[in-house]
């Protein structure tokens, strides 16, 4: 039992995180062509709305909720020490969890019933969607069965995650947790692990830079300011070696 626990809550997280970081970086830098949202809106555009929008909105809220509680456990605990706040937070989180569930179910139904979408479905998509579904169901289960997760996450799980980050895992708290929560944690690391191998990699390339970039983009093969300037050397700078 202890060996299993150690594997799942010490070894596995490290494997997952390292694979995630190395894999995402490698894929983004070296295999840019493979990074895409793989949107299927072009093949089916109406039904998608009822799946994609609730799924994405829900997952963004819930994901960043988890991240906040992980990053600022003390602040979270302090803020939720007022019971009303805690209730509001729990209800909100649950509602968005349900939103994810509805969206994901709609997306999966669409994937299974629409022949065009089936044609662009890969095995990795299925694995990913099932894993996400399991994770959401577990999350909702925890929300219902183990109340006040916001505060016990900050108090119990956040320190465990931080200890992993500090490379000195403190596993006491996590080993003692009920198996539903343990599964949810393992699920989270599994999702992280498969990001580089699935379409999920697209969340790493959220196009936020669009907000600040100018609308038009012009790319020059040569430097037009110096190419005809007799006072500049033939080649202005020694170019950096490219990665590819």
């Amino acid at each position, binding site marked *: 039992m202890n060996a299993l626990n150690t594997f799942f809550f010490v070894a596995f997280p490290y494997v997952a995180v390292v694979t995630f970081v190395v894999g995402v970086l490698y894929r983004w830098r070296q295999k840019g062509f493979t990074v*895409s949202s793989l*949107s299927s*809106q072009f093949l089916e555009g109406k039904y998608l709305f009822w799946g994609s929008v609730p799924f994405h909105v829900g997952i963004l809220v819930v994901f960043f909720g988890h991240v906040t509680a992980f990053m600022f456990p003390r602040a979270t605990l302090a803020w939720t020490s007022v019971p009303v706040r805690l209730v509001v937070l729990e209800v909100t989180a649950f509602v968005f969890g349900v939103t994810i569930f509805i969206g994901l179910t709609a997306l999966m139904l669409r994937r299974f019933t629409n022949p065009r979408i089936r044609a662009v479905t890969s095995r990795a998509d299925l694995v990913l969607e099932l894993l996400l579904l399991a994770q959401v169901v577990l999350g909702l289960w925890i929300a219902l069965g183990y109340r006040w997760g916001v505060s016990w996450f900050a108090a119990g799980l956040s320190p465990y995650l931080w200890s992993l980050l500090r490379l000195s895992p403190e596993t006491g708290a996590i080993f003692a947790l009920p198996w539903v929560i343990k599964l949810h944690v393992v699920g989270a690391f599994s999702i992280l692990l498969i990001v580089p191998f699935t379409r999920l990699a*697209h969340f790493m390339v959220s*196009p936020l830079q669009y907000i600040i970039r100018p609308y*038009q983009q012009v*790319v020059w093969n040569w430097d037009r300011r*110096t190419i*005809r300037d007799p006072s500049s050397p033939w080649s202005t700078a020694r*170019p950096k070696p490219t990665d590819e």
Partner: protein
Amino acid sequence: MDVRSQISMVFHLDKCIGCHTCSIACKNIWTDRKGAEYMWWNNVETKPGTGYPGKWEDQDIYKGGWQKNGDGIELKGAGKPRSLTNIFHNPHMPVIDDYYEPFTYKYLDLIESPAGDDQPTARPISMITGEPMDIKMGPNWDDDLSGSPDYARNDPNLKNLSPAEQQAMFEMERLAFFYLPRICNHCLNPACIAACPSGAIYKRGEDGIVLINQDVCRGWRMCVTACPYKKTYYNWSTGKSEKCILCYPRIESGQAPACMHSCVGRIRYLGVMLYDADQIERVAAADEPDIVARQMDMILDPFDPDVIAAAKANGVADSTIDSAQKSPTYKFVKEWDLALPLHPEFRTLPMLFYVPPLLPVMASVTNVDNSEQAEKLNDISKYWPDNWLYDTSTRELFGTIDDARFPLEYMASLFSAGDTESVADRLKKLMAVRLHRRHVTVGDVDEDTVAAALSNTDLNGQLADDIYYLTSLAKFDDRFVIPPAHREQAIEMMEFTGDAKGSTGFGFKVGTAVRGA
């Protein structure tokens, strides 16, 4: 003045025979792949018609292009922040059924079916799902006005015509059409670039070709919405958008793009134009009636010493300036004022120009008494039931332009944002050239008519002959003046060529140590 060079195109619509050779040449080279079967980077439409994808010109549906917003412009259906809020589901995204579901036939069934009582057939199957399907649409389903009640009648350009005018266009005796071949316009103010959240689309500074970096595109598909010409396509298999690349690998090696090279009607011209990039923003935001004239003003005279100096200061190569001076497109667009951009009101400043078609416009149908003719027909011949005369006589030059079979408003809706004047000007010129040549070669048009026509359109015999030459006799090298790509200089920016010195030429696969005893 920020002088840049742009590879621009002119399509002479009077010469297009609607053979689709251009489309096939392009398809064979670039889009005969999974996920791209439905794409026609080059397509040929019949006008009036709804085109491909259906009704692409109707921006109330597709929300493409730019629209005025106060003094400036904004993207109609995409842009900041809309591209980001609509990223999970883009409400203005066309779906494959707006184009057509790509199909093939199960040809092997014809050969491999077991012997039986019935003739085997090759059933159509979808190229997406592989399942048998009913073909509902193709990329040129409206070809030659077929299915006109569904297609031609729904042409968005008919919007500005009165019901009576529309009715007149579709009377059997007056029915006319022409072809409109389309590729990406390699715009100066491209909506596709502006809408791309990833910044994957860019315009090449040296020649103005607009490209999508396939390694950076993430399939957010906003360019598909934003391009008002629907010339960026989403590859449903790779999850990346693709578009016409103007055959840049061919252009860089001095060859004409495949569609142009193969064009049977020789309607296509390609050449460099110098323009002032500082004006892009202002021109794109100009008032609708002015927008064509303002775009023409942006294009600079490549013989003007100031322009040449500014171009050189901006890194434009001498060879490119030389190409600009010989450019056939400059002649058609600027010098002779014969060509117009397609739908300038989309405000992307397209750099593909069209010489409007004269023939169907000029031929008129008049009411005459045909009964005398009808009586001459013998019993076997069919009785001629109506009293129309299809009149292609060139005498009533300026009279016929106004009561032409294609109302000028229709042409203006396509080529000049509704300004009938500029279309009429160009048609009159084309007619004057034709009269002049008729006078020279056949001689049945009297000299005064010709002189009047020429002077009315600011032409003279010499100019008319030049236009005639480039229209009808031009050789390959007259039609395509491609500037050298100067890759030998461009490469200095990316690689230090000194590193490669001594490493090129003849080499050995095995080292001497292994080779030698």
